[in-house]
């Protein structure tokens, strides 16, 4: 997470996004995937609607995480639910729910904050340090390329099975083919086509 924050901060500043707005993204989103996506799409001049849809789709799987951790938060007050929800990311979810299962007497709030807050601090700090570095990076270094490289790194960790790899290929090729579509909507079309391909492949495998 620290590496992503660092390079995202550098790349955002390099792309001309004001430091305060990058820091704002860190606090408002607290999501590496959405932050990197928004930086990339802002830089390429994508329409606001497409940026919103894409940045939210990147974290849509957090609904699964939310559903899965909900039983443990059931008895908490509304304020706590909102605070803990704000901090919800896959790493602290995984650590917390594992602990809750093994050790049912665990203080739900304390353990969750113990995993979530460090994550939050690391993310904000790395983004801030990146922004500071980014001010001094000359444009001819092509530092904007680190954002695609971060996506490639994230993809690399996702392509564990053949269906996901196919999803990525289909979405990528569709995206290149859809370059001319109005409002940069090729991106959304490509993500839909890729996901649909995954769903169909999966169904095909289950049928046989």
């Amino acid at each position, binding site marked *: 997470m620290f590496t992503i924050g660092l390079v995202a901060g550098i790349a955002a500043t390099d792309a001309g996004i004001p430091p305060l*707005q990058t820091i704002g993204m860190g606090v408002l989103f607290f999501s590496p995937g959405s932050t990197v996506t928004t930086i990339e799409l802002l830089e390429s001049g994508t329409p606001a609607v497409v940026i919103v849809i894409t940045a939210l789709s990147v974290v*849509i799987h957090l609904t*699964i995480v939310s559903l899965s951790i909900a039983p443990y938060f059931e008895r908490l007050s509304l304020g706590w639910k909102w605070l803990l929800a704000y901090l*919800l990311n896959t790493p602290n979810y995984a650590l917390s729910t594992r602990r809750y299962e093994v050790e049912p007497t665990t203080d739900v709030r304390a353990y969750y904050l113990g995993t979530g807050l460090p994550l939050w601090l690391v993310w904000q700090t790395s983004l801030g340090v990146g922004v500071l570095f980014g001010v001094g990076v000359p444009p001819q270094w092509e530092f904007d390329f680190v954002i695609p490289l971060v996506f490639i790194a994230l*993809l690399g960790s996702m392509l564990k099975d053949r269906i996901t790899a196919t999803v990525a290929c289909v979405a990528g*090729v569709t995206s290149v083919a859809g370059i001319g579509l109005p409002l940069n909507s090729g991106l959304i079309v*490509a993500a839909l086509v890729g996901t649909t391909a995954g*769903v169909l492949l999966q169904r095909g495998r289950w049928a046989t």
Partner: protein
Amino acid sequence: MQVELGAPSVWLLLAVIGAGIFAIRLSFIQLRGVIDKFPPQVERSLKFVPAAIFSAIVFPELFVVDGSIGGLDSLIAVVINARSVAGGIAAVVAIRTGSILATVGIGMAVLWGIRAIVG
């Protein structure tokens, strides 16, 4: 509506996305009991989405030069350009090592190397 970098309206955009992400996170914590479980197929489909989006963003970055993929004559130049080569090598590193630092570091090193040689 296109957003200008650094404009005050960017803050509005960031606030909307931030609120949306919060709503996604809060969703079933708040709506506890509405459903017990996602159907397994829906759950797996949702997990495909990030891979599809990241890939849809990356491919044009690597293979589209100056806003178009061009005609057949320029196709080779498009497939073999500094960024696609660097990106391809970075992809191998990403799958082999799983390290973000190694992927970004080697990808940038290859890009700079090609620029230094080819100019």
